[in-house]
């Protein structure tokens, strides 16, 4: 049984409960524009307040209510059999701490998660008490992200949606088989049921609010989830297919990917030397391609190629496999086509469309519009002019692209750690 240290001071509790909460990748404070009487508001685009030494953004007080847990999931730092010190915060402490941090502008709001104490229902009730205290007593209009505890009663899940801006249930392991192996006590069913319920309520409330404005909002910033990467043998293809289904069928706002950090030793877990950060980065890139670039999972990965390439980003890989569609004439191509050019992002694609209304674009103009020409040059023409390699073939372009990554041309010295450095400079982990 858990043994609490009585009269543990707030500082110590905060350390234990923030330490246990930090592996959750979500930090978003976006998607809601709450406001009104009282203190606080939510900002549609979200606001980051600081970045920790791992480069991840802090926008919410991300904390567990308690790190005690009745479950014994192998990958989880809070598992029952881990005899680290346990702590629990009272609803008053959670609400008070959030408010003090918020008014100093340290944070956008609260991200409350929890281990399971006594039962899922009991845990949810305590969490709801904390959030209600914040909303009702402190009249707090800032952002609240609430984790929904799998297995808790439907009425409690419904309440979470009424008090929080965002709700989430973490899938953690992408297949039922892995769940059974590493998370005894959880099944695909126990995870998906609350997600389904939330998805239904979110879309119903949205529909109703269109006709009746006074209908209370239900999780206006939507629902998200998280998958742990590298603790189990699922392929990138399985993961991206799952994400695609979650976006299309459950209308999730975000799927987060969290490189497995081996904090626990367990013979059911792989012995990783370091978390697979580059793989996590590639998954985020593929996820972006699904949500903002009009790609499908099947276009990015197929049964013969179930893993994302670690050398090239997934859009470049797709373009190299589809050279018959290139080069594209930037003065004529559609927005959807332009989005598929490596080196062109959403912003620069929109700029191209806008700028070409004012006049014909030349190759030299593209750089000024923010296009990364060292990548895009092989895939576009402007006014019929092409600046890439003469006889474009997949191999020729690959060699050129690699030269840019490694100007010395020593391809054989292309080490994984260099790639990690390169790949993570522009990481999108957890933002937006």
């Amino acid at each position: 049984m858990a043994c609490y240290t009585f009269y543990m001071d707030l500082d110590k509790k905060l350390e234990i409960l923030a330490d246990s909460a930090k592996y959750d990748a979500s930090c978003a404070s976006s998607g809601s524009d709450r406001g009104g009487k009282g203190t606080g508001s939510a900002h549609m685009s979200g606001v980051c307040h600081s970045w920790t030494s791992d480069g991840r953004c802090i926008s919410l007080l991300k904390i567990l209510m308690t790190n005690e847990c009745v479950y014994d999931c192998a990958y989880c730092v809070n598992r029952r059999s881990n005899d680290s010190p346990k702590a629990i915060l009272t609803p008053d402490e959670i609400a008070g701490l959030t408010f003090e941090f918020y008014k100093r502008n340290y944070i956008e709001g609260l991200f409350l998660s929890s281990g399971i104490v006594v039962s899922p229902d009991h845990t949810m009730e305590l969490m709801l008490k904390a959030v209600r205290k914040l909303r009702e007593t402190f009249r707090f209009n800032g952002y609240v992200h609430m984790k929904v505890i799998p297995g808790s009663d439907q009425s409690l899940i419904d309440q979470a949606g009424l008090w929080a801006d965002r709700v989430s249930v973490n899938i953690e392991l992408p297949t039922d088989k892995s769940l059974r192996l590493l998370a005894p006590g959880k099944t695909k069913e126990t995870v998906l049921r609350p997600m389904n319920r939330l998805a239904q309520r979110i879309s119903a409330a949205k529909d109703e609010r269109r006709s009746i404005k006074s209908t209370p909002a239900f999780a206006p910033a939507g629902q998200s989830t998280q998958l742990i990467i590298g603790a189990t043998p699922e392929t990138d293809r399985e993961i991206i297919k799952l994400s695609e289904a979650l976006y299309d069928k459950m209308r999730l706002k975000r799927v987060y990917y969290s490189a497995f950090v081996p904090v626990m030793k367990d013979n059911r877990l792989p012995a990783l030397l370091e978390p697979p950060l580059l793989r996590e980065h590639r998954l985020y890139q593929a996820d972006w391609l699904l949500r903002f670039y009009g790609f499908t999972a099947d276009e990015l990965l197929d049964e013969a190629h179930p893993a994302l390439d670690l050398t090239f980003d997934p859009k470049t890989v797709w373009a190299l496999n589809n050279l018959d569609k290139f080069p594209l004439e930037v003065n004529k191509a559609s927005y959807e086509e332009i989005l598929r050019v490596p080196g062109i992002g959403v912003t620069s694609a929109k700029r191209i469309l806008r700028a070409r209304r004012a006049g014909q674009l030349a190759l030299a103009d593209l750089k000024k519009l923010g296009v990364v020409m060292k990548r895009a040059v092989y895939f576009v023409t402007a006014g019929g002019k092409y600046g890439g390699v003469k006889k474009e073939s997949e191999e020729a372009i690959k060699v050129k692209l690699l030269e840019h990554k490694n100007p010395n041309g020593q391809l054989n010295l292309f080490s994984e750690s260099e790639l990690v450095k390169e790949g993570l400079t522009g990481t999108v982990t957890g933002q937006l």
Partner: protein
Amino acid sequence: MRTFLYDGSFEGFLTALSLGLEGGDGCSISKENAAEPGLFSEYVNSGVDPKRAAAARDLVERRGSAESWQHARFAFLSEVQGAETAILDYVRLLAERGPIADSMLADDRVKKVHGLAASVGGEAHMFKGFVRFKELADKTLYSKIEPDHNILPLITGHFRARLGEFNWVIHDVRRGKAALYFKQRLIYAPLTAARALEFDGKEAEVQALWKHFFKTAAIKERTNPKLQRQNVPLKYRKNLTEFE
């Protein structure tokens, strides 16, 4: 080569802008004490003429759009050397070409002003996150900032909506001015050295909790100071409680 000098105020700048537009190509605009004397320059003191200023604004909004006006205003707030003349060249293009000018994104005149405006807008957004209040003994929330650009007027609305039930001060120590929000009223005032601040009794404790949380939230297996520097440039850290 005529240079129109203005007093540093926005209205003074708009007056100079109106004069510059009449002055033909090659004119420039500069703040009175920032102008570099050139051998062949002719200096004209623009003064402040509310009618001219209003006419300049009207021209930008009418020949361009509300978007053009925002670009010009934000670029002015950048306080980057040469921004005033860049705005003059941009407005001249607007006057010639009309609203399509804002779509000429590869044109250097447009790119320059849009770019300045974007970096001002970007810094203003960052400071919605980087402002750190400290609670004073009289419960006023006090914050010190040192942004590159003059973003103070762009962030007060955000804090007014958010912390409207408190009294607060955001002090731009670099520019010696402050936004003071007191009893639901917002005023801007010059503020150089604030008198020694007396903090609320709980302030030190809350700061310690925050610093502790900040340290704990980092995953040591993922340490990446380069990424952290990219997101929180060193120049901003001295006013951030968690880096103190």
